[in-house]
Structures are given as C-alpha cells and as structure tokens.
C-alpha cells in the first residue's frame, strides 16, 4: 500500500497524524477488505480444481455469459435512444419518465422479481394474454434475460444520458442548419462524442447483469443449464461443501475486478 506524499506531508505539518480520518476509514476498509481476503484465502486452500471442472460450474458460467451478453446488447440498443430522448427532448411527463427509468437502480431485486412475475407470469397482468398466444415466460432463459435487463439497463441509460447531456446543443443546431437529418446528427455527432459514456454504461450494466440474483430466482426459477446463472449456482452450491460456490465466487470476483479496472481506465482517459 502506498500513501500519497501530499497527504503524508500535510498531516505532519499540522502536527497531528490524522488519526481521526484514518481510524474511521479503517473500519470500512476492513469490512470490505477482510471478506475478500477470506474468500481468496479459502479458495487457495480448498481443493478448488476438483470442482472447477464440474459440469454445473461450466453450465452456470456458460449461461451467465450468454444471458448477460444478450442483456447488455438489448440495453444498449434500446437504452441509447431512450437516453438520447431523455437528454435532448423536452416533453410533458419527462420527470415521470426519468423517475421510472431510474427506479430499478434503487429497487430491491426481489421486488423486481415479484413485479416481473405479476406482469409477465402465466397468470400475470400481461402474461395471461401472452399465454393465450402460446408464449410462456417464467422458468425460461428469456426470463433470465428480462430480469437482467430490468435491473441493469437503467445503469446504462443513466450513464449514456449524462454523456448526451454534456454535448453542447449548439453543435446539434449547427448540424441541422447545415441540413443533417435527425438520424445523421445522432449517428455522426452524438454517438462518437458520447461513446465513452456509453462504454462506461455498458461495463456498469454488464457487471450488474452478471451479478443478478433475486429477480432471476423469483421470475426465472433455478434449473441447471437453463436458468441457473452463476449467482444462483453459488447460492445453491453454498451448502454442498462450499467448493462449487468458491470456484464460481472466484470467477465472478475476477470478472468484476477486470471490468472495474476497465472502468477506471475509461474514467482516467476522460479526465485528460
């Protein structure tokens, strides 16, 4: 661990070691750090490789990768235009729309799961109608993707919205005066400028989709190879001698760290 020199010199100059800052911080650092250390420690000491090749681990990993990729693609295709509308259009009920789109960010996933079930379940508000034309959503991989999009897309939309909002409206006006169509303004000017914000949104929503648990369990159920994603397999595997849960936890930890480092890179670039 490296202490930045500026911090160090400031605290010695005052004559106080800055303990009133360090001690409370240590509480939080240990609360977050110790479980991560313990997780890595136990994994290193467990016979992790006997489990790593197990079929359920492979199935959960594959399903998580496929569903989260679909989720992020859908979020990107539908969320980018939505973010653009929110950032650049003025209309009645905009505040309400903003509220609705941001809601899943703060909503507990279990509430999301019940809401999805009550809307799209076989006996749900719209599900009964879907069922009549032969579409049943609960307990399917589609339901997993729906749950993931519900909880993760708003993160992408929020990030993209900030990106679009930062663009000077005069630039848009100028392009339109020159005769550019709405679509071309969006495609040739807005998208390239907001690209970094979009990428940040993609990473944020991808991590959220990969980690989705509560809504999936309630809406999609738990069946290996079909709806059992990594977080579900970790929960189910927890009582089977920890091995499977540990392997999957390590994989998710590694992926999360990787995505976080990517995110940091993006943030650093945007500051220069």
């Amino acid at each position, binding site marked *: 661990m490296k202490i930045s020199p500026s911090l160090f010199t400031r605290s010695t100059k005052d004559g106080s070691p800055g303990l009133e800052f360090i001690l409370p911080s240590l509480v939080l650092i240990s609360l977050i750090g110790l479980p991560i250390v313990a997780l890595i420690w136990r994994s290193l000491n467990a016979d992790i490789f006997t489990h790593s090749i197990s079929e359920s681990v492979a199935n959960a990993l594959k399903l998580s990768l496929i569903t989260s990729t679909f989720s992020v693609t859908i979020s990107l295709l539908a969320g980018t235009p939505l973010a653009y509308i929110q950032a650049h259009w003025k209309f009645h009920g905009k505040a309400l729309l903003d509220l609705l789109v941001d809601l899943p960010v703060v909503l507990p996933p279990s509430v999301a799961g019940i809401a999805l079930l009550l809307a799209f379940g076989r006996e749900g508000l719209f599900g009964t109608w879907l069922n009549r034309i032969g579409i049943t959503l*609960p*307990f399917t991989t589609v339901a997993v993707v729906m749950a993931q999009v519900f909880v993760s897309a708003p993160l992408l939309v929020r990030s993209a919205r900030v990106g679009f909002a930062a663009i000077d409206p005069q630039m848009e006006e100028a392009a339109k005066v020159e005769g550019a169509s709405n679509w071309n303004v969006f495609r040739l000017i807005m998208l390239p400028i907001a690209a970094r914000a979009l990428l940040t949104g993609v990473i944020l929503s991808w991590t959220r989709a990969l980690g989705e648990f509560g809504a999936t369990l309630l809406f999609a*159920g*738990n*069946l290996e190879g079909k709806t059992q994603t990594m977080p579900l397999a970790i929960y*189910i595997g927890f*009582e089977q001698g920890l091995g499977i849960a540990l392997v999957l936890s390590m994989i998710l930890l590694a992926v999360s760290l990787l995505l976080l480092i990517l995110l940091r890179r993006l943030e650093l670039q945007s500051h220069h």
Partner: protein
Amino acid sequence: MTKSFVFIGLSLILTMTACTDTARDGPSTRYPEPIASLVVPAGHPTAISQERTLTVFAAASLTGAFREIGMGFESTYPGVSVNFNFAGSQILRAQIEQGAVADVFASADHNNMDVLFPDELIVVDSYRDFTTNRLTVILPPGNPGNVQDLGDLAKANLKLVLADSSVPAGNYARQIFTKMSMDPVYGVDFMTKVLANIVSNETDVKQVVTKVELGEADAGIVYVSDSITARDHLTISIPENFNIVASYPIAILTTALEPDLAVAFVDYVISPTGQAVLSKWGFSPMID
C-alpha cells in the same frame, strides 16, 4: 439540519423504548410467578427483569407453526423474545457450520442435523424428533395442467416445480418418484419422465408453494403442512406406500448463548401445547 436529525433520532429511540417497556410489562402482570421461576436460576431473582433473546433456526416448512409456538413461548416466559431464522434446512445447517450463533436448530430431515455431530456443534443429549410430516402434490386453482392422478406428473410438457435436491423436501420428492418407478403401474421410466418436467429447483419448499399458488407451475410437491397453509390450490394425496414420513429433529447448539432458555423452548415444543399447535398447522405426531 443536523439538529432536526438528532431530534428525529432521539424521538425514534424514545418511541422504541416506550414500546418495549409496555411489551415487557404487559404479559408479566398476567402470568403467575411459578412459571417464570422455571427459567430463572435459583439465586438470580433479577434475571427475569432483563430482556433475553432466544435465537431459533428452523426449517422453512415450520414457519407458520413455529411463529405461533414462539408467541406462546414469549407469553409463557415474560421478558423473553424469540428470534426465528426460517430457511431451507440445508442453508441453516451451512450457516451453523460457518459459525452462525443460534440456540436451537429444528431441521426438516436428519441429514442436515447429523452432519453437525462430528464438529460437536449440537448438544447430543438434546437431539430428539419432535414431529412428522408427509408430502403431497399441490396444483394451482383451475388445474391448468389437467393433472388427475400421480401418473399425470410424467406426462409431456407438464411444468413441475420441486425443491432443490439439497433441500429436504426436494430430496423426499425424488425418493417418492424412485419408489413409484419400482411399481409396474407407473413403469421404470417414470422417474426420468418426471425429472424432465422440472422447470425449477427452488431453494426452499415455501418457494414451491408460491410458484404453484401464482399459477406459474402446473404442479409441485410440498409437505402436507404447506398444503394446509396455502391459500388457493388443489391437492392430490400420495398413498402411504409411496409417501415419505419426514421426521423433524430438534437440538440445542453447543454455542447457545441461552442454553437454559433453549431447553425450555424444546420442552415447550414437545409439550401438549406445542404439539397441538403443530397439529393445527398440518404436522402429525411422532410415531413410536
């Protein structure tokens, strides 16, 4: 700004204290001294005036019955509050193995209790069975899967929800299918066909009930006690020769913070009062 927060905080604390005070004083005036003295060790007359908390880990299927037993226990022993942790027995067992602190553990099967023996996590003398349960098929209102008998569980495209095989109820359901497969009426491939119909392995038996109640699944296998508490549903009973009698064991944990209260709680569960509550919630008495 800060001042108003402090004020709100203080008034919250005051309200909460006021509530606990009335809760403590209320029952104690109603119950005679002899009962209270059961839990108070001799020479510690002040012990009763302290708030004591008993932590009970109980199988999800016991939720309704144990909540009622807990309320009865609390009113019998004023000043005591019972905290429950209801979940699949396998999850509770894993939590205990990982160091969760509890006084009493009530499991829906012996497997999840017995594995705690070698690590000396339960008091061996306290281990006893206290009730039994059987399994039944539940169907949502309207019977969308048109399930008429047990054999229909194997028909193509039926949406069947079970508890995961690591959950006692899920394990029992699979044992029932194994028994049925050995009967020529259902045939050897019955098990394979039924397992192919599973659309979800739920993490505890109450989740199975919910999925069927909501009409998302065509059928589910749960305890008879669950089918009694479920709101809207139909049932198909499973004959004795295929059914499983699930014995529920209860034990005191070696790490118990309130060992004497734990003993009193187990006694209460075994007592006629406790057994009557269990029977009301669909459990059957022990078979000797």
